[in-house]
């Protein structure tokens, strides 16, 4: 390996020339081909986020129809068949196609910027992951539009989703959608872990990693260990349905509770895949708007990790009424209660930071306040359902529906909306409108609480979840109507957000690199960031590098300026150790995703599809890894 004679190092160029040169090397051409082949984490992250928001829209529309149906007793707007498909689509979409992907991909966009590198660890895997996710989501919704929407609920309990009672191909589409989204979810988790472990800017030791990045890392680890559970169980389900295995057939030695164990072993941590990144967003917003460093950094990191561990010991609290032994159930009550402690620590630390801070009450911080108010309700009702005796009354009623919407909307969507207002200027270079932002916040706050608080009472009044209608004599009509009105207001708040985004993209105030005067590295990049993120990789000596030195960014020199190159650093101390090249744009991830998707889709109809599909998938993967002769491949 002789040194290439023509190689250029960045030390030979001034900032302007270097930036132009790297922008060309890392850039994505504004062509169709460029769009299809890009491996830039920002391009992919952005389209991932837009796609997830599109699925939010679809899932939201399903919810709107459900709310309209339940707005009055004995309503005939939709029948049981469509209603069952609607709530299954709503749950599956929100969990698998919106919440988990959007949290993961905000990390895909932000983590490289926050840790001072130029791309994620495996950019082509990232592109592949997006395409597989897109195809999986589209497949599920296409199936719904041809009357093949799954109808057994987002947790698809057997035997209702099994071969005998899950009639037609509906549950097969559900089970295979799981395969797509888990494939993409796991791929992103691997990228995030390796990116955070090995690509941090020099000097970003473990105790200088931004809390959002910690949250993304903990989430990625949870995904790594929890998602295989649903892969295993959904594979068993589809085998039961398609080739006649007996995993869940009680008459031949199987057991329907095996499904529940496996599903909830994944399903409970999944709530934390959504919630933990949201806490990361909160921990990013609070310092910027209080002008204070986060109080209790170490405690916060330890609570994130603690939550990550405890989340794996809770799954049985979804099965308290299945008749498991009481002693075991008591253990799971204790562990479910215990997970409230790390959440409590986080809330105490946030309030402690706000306490002495110099507050700037802009929209992102408003959403943080809304988050705390709503999430605490969800957390506390979580403590209630963790108690076995109380759960026997509220399990599978609207009380639980209220509970998890407080946790997921209050605990994750509110921070997410705050995060959108916070980072939008970084993504698009323009500020969102503050006035509309306040409208957005208050409508969301009022609409959300009107929609979901009455559900607590409905559940206690005996209303089970997943009913497509109810008789007038039950007396549930009034509260349900209130809830429907609240839901409409909540929908309105999203329309305000869309309006705000459209206005801002056309005529928003230009943001500048660091409009909030925040301290983390993403604000050192331009808004929107250049394709290479950083022309020179920053050197970090503080948890809030931009606060420590607002004028000058210390950087390293000596990297190549003629190829896509990133800096690999050590795990703990982030000492530079290797200059590794980063892959070029390529169409192969798209092709690989395409053939994988077709194979999986065909396997819904015949198991032989896996055999036929293996060859094209193998060819696509070989094409992906085969070097093309660029500088990036040969170093």
């Amino acid at each position: 390996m002789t040194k290439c004679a023509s190689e250029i190092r960045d030390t030979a160029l001034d900032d302007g020339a270097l930036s132009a040169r790297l922008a060309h090397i890392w850039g994505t051409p504004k062509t169709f081909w460029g769009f299809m082949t890009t491996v830039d984490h920002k391009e992919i992250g952005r389209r991932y986020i837009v796609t997830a928001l599109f699925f939010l829209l679809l899932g939201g529309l399903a919810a709107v129809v459900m709310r309209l149906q339940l707005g009055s007793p004995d309503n005939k707007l939709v029948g049981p068949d469509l209603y069952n498909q609607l709530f299954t689509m709503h749950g599956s979409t929100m969990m698998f196609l919106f919440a988990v992907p959007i949290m993961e991909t905000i990390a895909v966009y932000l983590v490289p910027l926050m840790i001072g590198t130029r791309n994620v660890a495996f950019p082509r895997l990232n592109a592949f992951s997006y395409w597989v996710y897109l195809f999986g989501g589209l497949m599920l919704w296409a199936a719904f539009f041809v009357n093949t929407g799954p109808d057994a609920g987002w947790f698809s309990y057997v035997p209702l989703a099994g071969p005998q009672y899950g009639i037609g191909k509906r549950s097969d589409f559900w089970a295979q959608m799981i395969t797509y989204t888990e494939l993409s979810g796991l791929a992103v988790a691997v990228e995030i872990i390796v990116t955070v472990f090995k690509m941090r800017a020099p000097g970003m030791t473990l105790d200088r990693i931004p809390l959002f990045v910690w949250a993304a890392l903990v989430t990625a680890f949870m995904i790594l260990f929890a998602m295989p559970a649903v892969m295993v169980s959904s594979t068993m389900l589809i085998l039961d349905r398609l080739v006649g295995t007996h995993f869940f057939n009680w008459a031949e030695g199987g057991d329907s509770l095996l499904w529940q164990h496996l599903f909830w072993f994944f399903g409970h941590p999944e709530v934390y895949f959504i919630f933990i990144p949201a806490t990361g967003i909160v921990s990013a917003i609070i310092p910027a708007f209080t002008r204070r460093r986060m109080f209790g950094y170490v405690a916060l990191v330890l609570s994130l990790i603690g939550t990550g561990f405890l989340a794996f010991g809770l799954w049985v609290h979804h099965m308290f009424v299945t008749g498991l032994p009481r002693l075991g159930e008591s253990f799971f009550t204790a562990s479910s209660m215990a997970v409230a402690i790390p959440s409590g620590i986080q809330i105490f630390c946030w309030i402690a930071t706000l306490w002495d801070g110099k507050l700037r009450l802009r929209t992102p911080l408003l959403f943080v306040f809304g988050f705390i108010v709503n999430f605490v309700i969800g957390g506390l009702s979580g403590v209630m359902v963790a108690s076995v005796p109380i759960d026997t009354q509220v399990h599978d009623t609207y009380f639980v529906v209220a509970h998890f919407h407080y946790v997921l909307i209050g605990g994750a969507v509110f921070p997410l909306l705050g995060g959108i207002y916070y980072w939008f200027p970084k993504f698009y270079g323009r500020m969102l409108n503050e006035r509309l932002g306040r409208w957005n916040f208050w409508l969301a706050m009022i609409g959300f609480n009107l929609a979901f608080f009455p559900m607590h009472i409905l559940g206690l009044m005996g209303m089970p979840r997943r009913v497509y209608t109810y008789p007038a004599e039950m007396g549930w009509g009034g509260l349900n109507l209130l809830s429907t009105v609240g839901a409409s207001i909540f929908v309105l708040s999203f329309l305000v957000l869309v309006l705000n985004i459209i206005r801002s993209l056309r005529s928003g105030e230009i943001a500048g690199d660091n409009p909030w005067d925040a301290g983390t590295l993403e604000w050192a990049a331009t808004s929107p960031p250049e394709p290479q993120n950083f022309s020179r990789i920053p050197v970090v000596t503080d948890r809030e590098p931009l606060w420590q030195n607002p004028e000058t960014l210390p950087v390293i020199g000596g990297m190549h300026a003629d190829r896509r190159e990133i800096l690999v650093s050590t795990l703990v101390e982030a000492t530079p150790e290797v200059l590794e090249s980063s892959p070029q744009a390529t169409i192969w991830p798209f092709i690989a995703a395409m053939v994988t998707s077709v194979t999986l889709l065909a396997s819904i109809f015949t198991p032989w599809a896996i055999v036929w599909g293996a060859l094209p998938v193998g060819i696509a993967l070989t094409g992906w890894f085969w070097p093309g002769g660029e500088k990036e491949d040969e170093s």
Partner: protein
Amino acid sequence: MTAGRIRSVVQLATCSSALQACSGWQSALDPHSQTAAHLAGLFWFFTAICAIVWVLVVAALIMVLRRRRESESVLPGDDFPHQQRRKAIIVGSLTAITAIILTVLTYMSFYATREITWPRKHVLTVKVTGQQWWWQLDYQNQDPSQSFGTANELHIPVGQPVTVDLEAADVIHSFWVPNLIGKQDMIPGRKNVLTLRADKPGLYRGQCAEFCGLQHAHMSMFVFAEPPAAFEAWRRHQLEPAATPGAPQRITGMNIFVHGACATCHAVGGTDADGQTGPNLTHFAQRATIAAGTLRNTPANLSRWLADPQAVKPGTNMPQVPMSPADRQALVAYLEGLK
């Protein structure tokens, strides 16, 4: 008793209209049995604690917004060391308090579980089998001549514990009568057991609580808690065959039933109708509702149900049997005579 006092305090404190709405014949907050009372007491205790915690958090947030800052330094950065130390102590103590509260709640919950656990052998045993979308009830007895079957309406004697064996014929269902007891799943291939005891006579509504397919919404049941004497009278009556029709119209109705499609799925004791896949109709006229609580049992409703079951309960396994209006009248007359 503590829980009871707390409950009344909370009741006073909370908006009373919401609470009035909470009481009803299918409400967890209107207990009519010791078990349900324990559960409600525990619920109110948890609610009180949680409400206090939430109010404190919101109060803290309001103070954050309103308090004057000692030092409004413009430069971003850390707190002063003495503030840091003070905060660390406060956050640490709050965490400890959280842990203590959670321990107390865990203990309370465990204690309540023990309170509501009964020994499993009782005089009266009823096997409840969940079906898509109705409840099959079998009153079991060592002596087969004392055993009988019925559907959707469970009669129990007040004050006596009754063993309820829970099974399912097709998919998972869940047995839940909130005024009397929390829910328990009915799982194909498994057996669960509950002990049901009503302490006040009354009519309580229950509903399937595990999503079970198209008509999950219309799978409800009624529990009639009766004084022991009334229950015994009811039980004896159930053991008898169906009433023999006298009026000609009813005899016509019986012939339609016994020789037509009805008898394929339904049984009527004392006749040739012995279908087992649908509800037993021997004493149908005594029941308060039709189709697992979907309609009140009136001749008009029954006629509507027979004319087009799928319009009333889309997806039900009850088919629309074609017959002339006169035949349907006769069938209704027969069924409404099955006292």
